């Protein structure tokens, strides 16, 4: 955990006071609804379908057990006893009262937390690999760079009112677990031949209405220039990004309209003015930030734990969980454990206050008091001794957090959807549940292998449907909820030869109750087509193209005609 110093704490406290004053002025009629809206949005407060929604920042997804207990307490005291972990590694409360929000923020500040820039047209929470600092394929510990960027982006005076929201992701490992090609800026840590750290800079990726895979505009940016270079990009975007059309305001549209090459030239020209300026990072500052991070203490262990290996061999259920939910650790004898928030029957990413308290307890006893939130909406204990995995598994099972589905079809990413969100065209949670139930019942799930299934309730794509191997998007047709299906998306280079990709729509959309059948048809074709169990769903889609899948779902031309007629009759 990064521990605040006095100044970090003071700035957060001052933000609480400022927001308290703004809320007070709004409630007493001194600030109009139109003026208050952008101000509250900058602090994560939306007015939703039923009540305000408050999004609390979990910088780069890293939490202490003490912070998680406070999140649980807030849910109990001011909400309805649960929270929703989002795909930006944040937590959202769906039922707070506006007049309570300043008190909630004050409570958060007591554990070095806040809701700063969790929405609005500004630089949002910086996200990263949820295995940062423990992954075997680590290049750098990305948390340190994320914290440097967090401080730089917090209340940046020039970039408070950008054309649109701005998302930055940092990846510090070989495998891209941060979807850096699908962010406004993606930063990939690299080392040059001398071993010096730098970043590959990617701009203009994103999901939403116009999904685009980002462009590399610099292969190697020495780390000292990280802030000045990012600032140059933001400056060009702030001045020239479109402000006339909400849907064309993201940086990806500017990059596309100018061409990536021209955009790069503009950024480099701007950077020439800022390069080597006072914002150039120093060794001392990087070391200072590094030094303020506490890390769980590790013991020196010989290697894999013999007792653990024996239990894996003896207990198939434990082994099945370990295969899916336990990741190797860079330190011998340790492992990283994913606690699944994707139990069938529970909205993806939701956790109750009691579960949060229980996870905090597990983090204290098994993982040095720290945990992470993944963008796949699960919780991770990153520093568990192998010898304790079995005991942890039993406790997690009792809490409903040991569904062995990480990387599988039932580990669905979903936004809160039309049940909660006023932007959504359609519900996402019931769709997720229907799919989970179908595939649980068929007991298929362990044979299908790795499959990312992502659901968004609207084009804003909070559920990352564009990069699901299977993506489901809620669409509105004459006031009714329909669902469009795409296949072939991929969130990032998680293995060689599998780059980030945006899925392709397979055809006309479906009614909600048709979705499990459609997914089953897609999976059925995959199982017939795959050449071995090692060939994943996504690999088959890429090998064969989407046509065979289309045909399986919609049938021949004649059958398609019929499908259309039936849909029209139903609509």
């Amino acid at each position: 955990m990064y521990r605040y110093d006095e100044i970090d704490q003071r700035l957060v406290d001052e933000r609480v006071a400022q927001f308290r004053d703004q809320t007070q002025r709004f409630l007493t009629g001194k600030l109009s609804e139109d003026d208050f809206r952008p101000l509250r949005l900058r602090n994560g407060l939306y007015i939703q379908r039923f009540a305000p929604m408050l999004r609390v920042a979990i910088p780069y997804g890293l939490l202490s057990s003490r912070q998680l207990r406070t999140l649980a307490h807030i849910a109990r005291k001011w909400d309805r006893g649960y929270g929703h972990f989002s795909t930006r590694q944040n937590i959202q409360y769906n039922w707070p009262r506006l007049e309570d929000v300043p008190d909630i923020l004050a409570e958060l500040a007591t554990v070095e937390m806040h809701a700063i820039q969790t929405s609005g047209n500004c630089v949002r929470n910086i996200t990263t690999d949820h295995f940062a600092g423990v992954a075997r394929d680590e290049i750098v510990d990305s948390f340190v760079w994320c914290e440097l960027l967090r401080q730089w982006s917090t209340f940046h005076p020039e970039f408070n009112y950008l054309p649109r929201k701005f998302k930055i992701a940092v990846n510090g490992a070989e495998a891209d677990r941060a979807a850096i090609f699908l962010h406004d800026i993606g930063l990939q840590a690299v080392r040059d031949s001398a071993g010096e750290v730098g970043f590959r800079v990617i701009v203009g990726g994103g999901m939403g209405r116009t999904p685009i895979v980002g462009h590399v505009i610099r292969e190697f940016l020495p780390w000292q220039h990280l802030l000045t270079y990012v600032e140059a990009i933001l400056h060009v975007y702030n001045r020239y990004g479109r402000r006339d059309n909400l849907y064309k305001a993201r940086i990806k549209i500017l990059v596309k309209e100018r061409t990536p090459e021209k955009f790069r030239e503009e950024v480099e020209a701007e950077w020439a003015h800022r390069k080597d300026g006072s914002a150039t990072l120093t060794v001392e500052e990087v070391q200072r930030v590094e030094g303020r991070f506490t890390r769980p203490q590790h013991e020196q262990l010989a290697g894999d734990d013999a007792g653990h290996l024996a239990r894996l061999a003896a207990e198939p259920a434990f082994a099945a969980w370990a295969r899916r939910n336990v990741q190797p650790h860079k330190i011998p004898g340790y492992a990283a454990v994913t606690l699944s928030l994707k139990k069938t029957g529970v909205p993806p990413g939701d956790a109750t206050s009691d579960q949060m308290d229980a996870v905090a307890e597990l983090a204290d006893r098994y993982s040095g008091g720290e945990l992470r939130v993944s963008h796949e909406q699960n919780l991770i204990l990153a520093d568990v001794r192998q010898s304790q995995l079995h005991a942890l598994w039993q406790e997690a099972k009792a809490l409903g957090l040991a569904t062995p589905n990480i990387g599988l079809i039932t580990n669905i990413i979903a936004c809160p959807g039309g049940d909660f969100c006023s932007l959504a065209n359609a519900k996402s949670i019931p769709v997720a549940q229907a799919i989970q139930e179908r595939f649980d019942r068929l007991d298929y799930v362990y044979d299908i292998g790795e499959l990312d299934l992502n659901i968004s309730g609207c084009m804003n794509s909070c559920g990352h449907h564009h990069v699901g191997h299977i993506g489901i998007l809620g669409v509105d047709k004459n006031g009714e909820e329909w669902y469009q299906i795409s296949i072939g998306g991929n969130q990032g280079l998680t293995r060689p030869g599998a780059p980030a990709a945006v899925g392709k729509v397979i055809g006309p959309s479906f009614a909600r109750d048709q979705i499990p059948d459609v997914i089953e048809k897609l999976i059925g074709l995959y199982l017939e087509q795959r050449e071995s169990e090692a060939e994943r769903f996504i690999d088959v889609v890429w090998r064969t193209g989407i046509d065979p899948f289309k045909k399986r779902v919609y049938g021949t031309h004649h059958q398609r005609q019929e499908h259309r007629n039936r849909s029209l009759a139903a609509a």
Partner: protein
Amino acid sequence: MALIIKDRNIVTDPWLRLELNADRSLPEIPPAGDVIVPLALWQQRREPLAARPSRLGICLDSHEEPAVIAEDLKLFGVVAVNFPKFTDGRGYSTARLLRERYGWKGELRAVGDVFRDQLFHLASCGFNSFALRDGEDLQDALGAFRDFSDTYQATVEQPQPLFRRRRLA
């Protein structure tokens, strides 16, 4: 005369701000008095404006480039930047360019949809004068300069970022 905030005080404003007419045509130039003119008027009536006995100020709209007046800055008594809506953040970048790249040392004024909640960050970007929109409580707005005790970034007001100052502390 209208009241503005300048250098953190409430003062009367000696300037008259001319704006384009509703049909975007150029306004009449009054024979005397200090005026702030829109960029288009300066570009098209440069001679008569320069020949007037009174002081001259210029106002850039949010989409207008500060580079186009860089050579003329010495002729102006004030440079204003308009915020058509407070959520249009281009003026923050314009201000930094005027201060940091084009060396403008004089009065830099935020005009348009300007109220209390922007003042702290506007000041960080180099504005030292603020013509708040109608109906704002100027006395209350002065408190905004104390909203935060510090900033992480290098700004016009504080050219050293916090991390360089932290090291010295």
